[in-house]
């Protein structure tokens, strides 16, 4: 009896000791297909790391951004791993809000990360966030409608070709719009598209002295082209359309072309949800022959806030979720088509992946065509292709987005929108101390 009691006591004590040793880390993330899939596959991680428990907090993108910013700025310590994008990483790393990721493990192979993506997530050569999935933007088009229009989409089209094709593909009687583009106001909505587009028109947000450039002809050309194109060939109410609205239109066969995130390719080519799945072709984002294309670069990435008490466990998780092994795990459980794209060069050399994802090559080419450190034709003092990596950009970008959305809706002229954008940007830059 005594022996039994003693054994039970020892077992309980060791169980308690184990429980006390087990660490739980909290991961803040967004709700998209790849992230949800990762949550389902975490058994693999907890099996390999039984002493680490994972708690998930999934939030809407803007709420997530606001919450993690509040938490990190106040050192609230609510999260041990945060899902952030290429916009936040350079700003937060410079503020010393993030821990550098230098203990990802011997077999992690940092050099395998696509250089353009790694560049967007590094400051002074140190990686501050590991990419979970990366994306650029490209043209998705209806091969059948293009053929009907008597045109052939080049791999690298110009804006003039897009306009010509959109005019020919537009068939209002049958509800087909030549082109669908973002119009909903927001720094991550219409301004992501328009900023990337403006790069290909030779425009830039600021000159080397942080003077706003909306009063320059390049911006006028960009916005006028966009408004004219959308008025002639875009869907009705385009000023309210963001990614999801255009996705619904394209999937229902109401768009001839759609220029948006490369991640959309897996949605539009999915026969379960898309009525045009077998008719979609892909091409690089358009240019104007100036050496820059109108495509962006974004990576949802995992970073560790400097305030965490569980840095070691957090880094183990980041390493697992962004490793080559994780890509193999997804491929084994869910098929190659569902592997998170745009992070590792080796994935694009994988024949099975290329077979499962017909858009793979174009995605990689698009990512490689974006350079966040030299995003524009003329020199700029900032980093970022479809954004300017300064804290003021979220507010300013949304203000300018509202002005441009109003121009698209016909509530103001292109000239008025640009003038107001110039005034708003000048005020913001002066207030921020960029303009002395």
């Amino acid at each position: 009896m005594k022996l039994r009691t003693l054994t039970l006591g020892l077992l309980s004590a060791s169980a308690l000791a184990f429980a006390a040793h087990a660490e739980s880390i909290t991961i803040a993330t967004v709700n998209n297909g790849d992230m949800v899939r990762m949550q389902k596959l975490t058994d693999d991680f907890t099996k390999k790391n039984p002493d680490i428990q994972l708690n998930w907090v999934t939030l809407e993108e803007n709420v997530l951004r606001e919450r993690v910013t509040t938490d990190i700025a106040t050192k609230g310590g609510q999260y041990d791993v945060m899902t952030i994008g290429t916009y936040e990483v350079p700003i937060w790393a410079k503020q010393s809000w993030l821990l550098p990721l230098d203990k990802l493990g011997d077999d992690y192979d940092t050099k395998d990360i696509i250089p353009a993506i790694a560049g967007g997530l590094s400051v002074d050569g140190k990686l501050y966030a590991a990419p979970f999935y990366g994306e650029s933007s490209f043209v998705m088009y209806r091969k059948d409608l293009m053929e009907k229009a008597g045109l052939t989409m080049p791999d690298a089209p110009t804006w003039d070709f897009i306009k010509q094709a959109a005019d020919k593909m537009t068939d209002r009687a049958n509800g087909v719009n030549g082109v669908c583009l973002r119009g909903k106001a927001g720094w991550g909505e219409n301004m992501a598209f328009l900023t990337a587009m403006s790069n290909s028109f030779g425009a830039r947000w600021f000159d080397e002295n942080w003077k706003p450039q909306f009063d320059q002809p390049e911006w006028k050309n960009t916005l006028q082209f966009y408004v004219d194109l959308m008025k002639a060939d875009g869907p009705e109410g385009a000023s309210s359309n963001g990614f999801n609205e255009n996705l619904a239109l394209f999937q229902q066969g109401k768009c001839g072309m759609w220029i948006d995130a490369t991640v959309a390719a897996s949605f539009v080519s999915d026969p379960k949800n898309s009525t045009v799945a077998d008719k979609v072709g892909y091409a690089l984002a358009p240019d104007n022959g100036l050496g820059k294309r109108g495509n962006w670069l974004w990576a949802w990435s995992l970073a560790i806030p400097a305030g965490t008490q569980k840095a070691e466990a957090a880094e183990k998780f980041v390493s697992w979720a962004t490793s080559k092994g994780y890509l193999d795990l997804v491929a084994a459980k869910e098929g190659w088509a569902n592997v998170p794209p745009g992070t590792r060069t080796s994935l694009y050399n994988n024949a099975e992946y290329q077979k499962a994802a017909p858009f793979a090559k174009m995605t990689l080419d698009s990512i490689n065509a974006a350079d966040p450190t030299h995003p524009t034709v003329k020199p700029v003092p900032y980093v970022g292709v479809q954004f300017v990596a300064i804290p003021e950009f979220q507010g300013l970008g949304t203000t300018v987005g509202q002005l441009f959305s109003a121009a698209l809706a016909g509530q103001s002229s292109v000239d008025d929108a640009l003038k107001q954008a110039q005034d708003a940007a000048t005020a913001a830059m002066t207030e921020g101390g960029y303009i002395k």
Partner: protein
Amino acid sequence: MARAVTTQHKTIATVAAWIVALLIFFPILYTIITSFKSEQEAIQGFALIPSGTFESYSEVQAQSGYFKFFLNSVILSVGSTILALIIAIPAAWSMAFSPTKRTKDILMWMLSTKMMPAVAVLFPIYLIFRDTGLLDSRVGLMVMLMLINLPIVVWMLYTYFREIPGEILEAARMDGASLWNEIVYVLTPMAVPGIASTMLLNIILAWNEAFWTIRLTTTEAAPLTAFISSFSSPQGLFWAKLSAASTLAIAPILIMGWFSQKQLVRGLTFGAVK
């Protein structure tokens, strides 16, 4: 002379009431309908007849367990309401039966706190919660929700209490009732309809509060508002799943509202007709 109400007038009024009620309820109804569609059906356009699949519900439950969020919603809304009533009943009593020169100013000041946008105090509140260790705790959030709704609770109770003749309380005092007995045994039973409707309204307000409940919680204290928020996707059309999550979140409060509608209406119109 009172105006006669004809059958024709009654019919028009009834039809108008039904139209308004349907217009108000339609978004909720369509959310419920969409929750029984597949994702493909959901994006295909307007349709009132779903295929009747439960696929979205099972996926929602598999993706993030509903019951923990539900339990937190119940604890937070009921807890904050009880706290609010404990503070508001004596406050409303004093203002209704022993008013001073400043009573109206105090009431206005209390209401004015509702006029400030919540985001204006996000950082101070966040810092207070951080320093007191209340982030992601039910107790902290309960106090927060109580504070948010307290002005409304005090105002509603004040309005009900004012309808109760002060002479009754005086009579109780003459019979030797203490202040406590006066509030508990005389005032409260007479104000039950008012207190009940205030309570129900406060539970609904606390249940639906989405600014603080999302921003001050992570995993332990997160209620159903955080549950819905986790299904909103920036890239991808998951309308059926989002509708299923929303239906699951509003169902308990909808059912509660349905069963207590008599009490709710009676309380809300209390004192409207003299």
